[in-house]
């Protein structure tokens, strides 16, 4: 038997089987049992059949498309096309579509399933424009038939299957949401990736509040180094805490040379600046100060109602501090000390006052609880010697002495920070802004005004890029600094002028000046899951205040989790 004849015979057998199976299926269509049996021959690979008839099959198919009237004649054209080229997926789909439009759902299901099998067996399946698209069409159409039959569960399975292959398939999404709603599964109705109105990295308070019974957990870590420039401080007062007690080896006459308490006049109304104050102030010119700060904050927020959100934000600090004295550079051998501790805790209350589509305005207030510790740093530094004292001569004391530093991790006061937040969702960009003013008692931490603006642009469903501008005005701060300075022998003793008499440890109150700062803050966010987001950003100072502490680049790393 010639190959062509053999193939023709095979084709005739398949035709008979096809028509036979259709007749069976058609009869089943009457009782809508919904069960069909696929002929095993349909699983035969495409290559078995005559492929040189596929061109002719295309002509039959085109004739059917030309007709497009859901008639039996149109069916005939597609059947002829399939007979000639069984792997002709589009013909299967069109034939099934016509059956569907004629209400012959069982036959239609049969054809769609055949289209699926042929699509799977095609080596072009990976191409979305080829077999994959046709496969999708068959799956979605099959789901639609189940929908028409009221078999929602089966329909949902088919549409879900289509979305597994192509998550962006609008037709599958459209049909699936309808089916879910018919099943009263409203929570599943919309695709899961409907994104939140995102929050910015540094402009953290948005205009909207959380939906009722919703939690967000927000873990942030920030690190930066900060410096304070060389600056004299206006000493408000100082109080001697302890004087150094020389060792017994020190000659008695030196002890006599110590300043006594009465030589240090108290500041009062009559004597606002005593002569010794001026003298002391000369020694209180700090050199450039440096610190490295690490902050961890865990924010927990909860939507009590749709318009009211509460939250609590405890903070943890790790701070390394180095303080130098301007006139004692030659003896500055302080080790950098790192301390850890709890900072102030914030309570958070926000109320949503207005919204219009993606525009939201809320008012909020942060309450600061002074849970921050004052950390004591203990260390040793060399005692003054004649050799290394700037104005002294010779060596007469050579030993170390213990010193203490006190580093505050909080404001040590109850502060309130009211603010206003606004969010505008301009698909796809989200704009956020908020402003707040912190009222303080002006000690340790001064008043502060912040204005933050942010724009968030989603590059895709996973990555958002953010750009922010953060303005800050800081008020003057009254600080207390525990420092040590060194007494000088009074000239009335007619000893070598400038000869050190020993250290005195005391609390100095002084005013640190505030100023204006502006940061430019780029960053990006990664949506790890629908509810979990990682973020990384940095604040780059573009305008720096000239007095007081000023941060260098601040690095931020955070993770946010939302519960719905």
């Amino acid at each position, binding site marked *: 038997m010639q190959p062509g004849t053999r193939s023709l015979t095979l084709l005739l057998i398949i035709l008979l089987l096809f028509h036979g199976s259709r007749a069976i299926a058609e009869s089943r269509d009457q009782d809508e049992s919904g069960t069909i049996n696929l002929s095993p021959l349909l699983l035969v690979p495409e290559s078995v059949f005559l492929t040189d008839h596929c061109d002719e099959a295309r002509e039959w198919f085109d004739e059917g498309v*030309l007709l497009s009237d859901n008639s039996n004649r149109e069916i005939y054209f597609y059947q002829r096309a399939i007979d000639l080229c069984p792997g002709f997926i589009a013909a299967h789909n069109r034939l099934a579509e016509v059956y569907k439009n004629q209400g012959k759902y069982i036959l239609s299901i049969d054809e769609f399933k055949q289209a699926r099998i042929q699509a799977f067996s095609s080596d072009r399946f990976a191409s979305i424009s080829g077999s994959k698209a046709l496969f999708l069409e068959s799956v979605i159409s099959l789901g639609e038939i189940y929908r028409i039959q009221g078999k929602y569960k089966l329909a949902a399975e088919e549409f879900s299957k289509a979305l597994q292959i192509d998550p962006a398939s*609008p037709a599958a*999404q459209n049909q699936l949401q309808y089916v879910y709603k018919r099943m009263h599964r409203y929570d599943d109705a919309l695709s899961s990736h409907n994104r939140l109105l995102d929050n910015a990295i540094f402009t953290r308070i948005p205009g909207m509040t959380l939906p009722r019974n919703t939690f967000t957990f927000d873990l942030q870590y920030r690190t930066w180094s900060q410096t304070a420039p060389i600056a004299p401080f206006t000493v408000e007062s100082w109080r001697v805490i302890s004087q150094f007690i020389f060792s017994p080896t020190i000659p008695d006459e030196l002890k006599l040379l110590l300043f006594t308490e009465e030589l240090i006049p108290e500041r009062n109304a009559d004597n606002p600046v005593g002569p010794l104050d001026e003298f002391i102030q000369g020694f209180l010119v700090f050199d450039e100060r440096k610190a490295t700060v690490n902050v961890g904050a865990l924010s927990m927020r909860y939507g009590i109602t749709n318009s009211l959100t509460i939250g609590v934000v405890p903070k943890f600090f790790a701070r390394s501090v180095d303080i130098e004295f301007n006139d004692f550079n030659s003896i500055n051998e302080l080790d950098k000390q790192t301390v850890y501790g709890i900072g102030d805790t914030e309570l958070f209350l926000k109320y949503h006052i207005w919204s219009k589509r993606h525009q939201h305005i809320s008012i909020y207030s942060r309450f600061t609880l002074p849970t921050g510790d004052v950390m004591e740093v203990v260390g040793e530094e060399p005692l003054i010697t004649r050799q290394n004292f700037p104005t002294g001569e010779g060596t007469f004391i050579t030993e170390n002495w213990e010193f203490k530093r006190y580093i505050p991790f909080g404001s040590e006061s109850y502060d309130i920070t009211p603010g206003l937040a606004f969010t505008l969702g301009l698909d796809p960009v989200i704009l956020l802004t908020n402003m707040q003013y912190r009222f303080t008692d002006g000690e340790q931490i001064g008043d502060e005004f912040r204005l933050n603006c942010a724009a968030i642009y989603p590059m895709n469903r996973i990555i958002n890029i953010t750009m922010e501008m953060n303005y800050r005005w800081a008020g003057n701060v009254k600080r207390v600094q525990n420092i040590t300075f060194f007494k000088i022998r009074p000239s009335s003793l007619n000893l070598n002028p400038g000869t050190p008499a020993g250290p005195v440890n005391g609390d100095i109150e002084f005013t640190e000046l505030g100023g204006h700062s502006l940061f430019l803050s780029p960053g990006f966010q990664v949506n790890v899951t629908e509810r979990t987001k990682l973020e990384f950003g940095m604040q780059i100072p573009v305008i720096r205040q000239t007095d007081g502490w000023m941060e260098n680049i601040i690095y931020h790393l955070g993770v946010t989790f939302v519960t719905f």
Partner: protein
Amino acid sequence: MMLDFKFHVSGLRLLFLYSIILFLCSGCSYSIFSGPREKIGFERASASGQQKIIIADNAIYQNNRSGMQIRGNTPVKVTNCDVYQNGRAGINAENSGNVFIESSNIFQNGTSAVVGNNASRIFVKNSLLHQNHRAGMRIRMSEKPLQESTLVSLINNKIFLNERGGVHAISNALTPIRLFVSENVIYRNHEAGIRIEDNVYMAAAMNKIYRNGTSGIACYITNDVSPKLDVYQNKIYFNRGPGIFVHSGSTGSIGISNNWIYNNQLAGIACGLWDGPEKEKIDVEIFHNTIVGNGSDDNGTGVRNYSRGTVRVKNNIISYNFTSGILDDNCRGSSYNLLFANGQTSSAKASSRRQSLFIEREQYAGCIGKQWGDILADPLFVNPDQYDFSLQDDSPARDAATTIHSSYFNKLPNNNLGAAPLLLPDR
């Protein structure tokens, strides 16, 4: 005087036909283009308005340029012809061309099946316009037309599988295109089923417009004159964009009324989707439509209004839409609508208030909530699974409509919310 050519022509007979036409037209004060050899064309040489040319039962195919090119206002009737695989348009009517096309099959041409450039009148009836490389029908009015307007009627045609839109009409001139589209089936075109731009008035009735690549019907403005449209008694479904998209423009005396608009993959009806001054130029009335199950992904509102113009939404049934039922900044023009199962909200809830989501999954998005006369209840369709949105006898949408005072609704009063099924074409 009437010239009546009747030939059964195919293949080599074309040359014979050409010779006959050349002979007859020469003797009847008509001249023939001296263009490409394969071309058949007519140009009016006399000013007589009484003459008419009839081209019937021809197959005109595989010409380098258009199958037919018709100029001048002498009426040309093309009936029962196959016009296909020509290098440009199947039939090109220009410069006041006046053509009546009936029962013809015009397909696989290099540009559109029928092109009208400054034509005075084009009438297409009972024809198939399909698989052309651009729109099925493209009508254009340029800046200096010879006539006052272009009148285009499309009745009972099938316009499908064209590589651009189904019908595209654009007028950059102050003289309008008047486009009447009735009882057609417009489907599976790669772009919009019907797209009108600028100075075009369109009335579309009793059509089935489905599975087109973008919108079912789209309405744009690119210059100063807004398009105008009346869309009524149509079924518009399964399109890949909105069912009806009014970027800018206004509705006429009927508005967008009595349509079934369902399962389109973006909004059912979208107005003013983008930013720009065009947003102001919207004045649309949306009455008595049944808008069901539209949307996908992040989009999919029953009626979506991003414009700052006027959009009045009354007596509609809006249900099962993807993200929300009505999306409007204030819903000022909305009332007496029935909403159900839009977004993630079930029957009686107006809103889920998931305000921290970018997409509002609620019946009303942007509005405060239920508007005057609105009903939040299951409309009780006869068989929505099979796309039958007729109302059951005990539907809450029955007798719930407010009266619309217009000549159209005076003739076709409807006490029920949604579209009157009897007015619609069969599925």
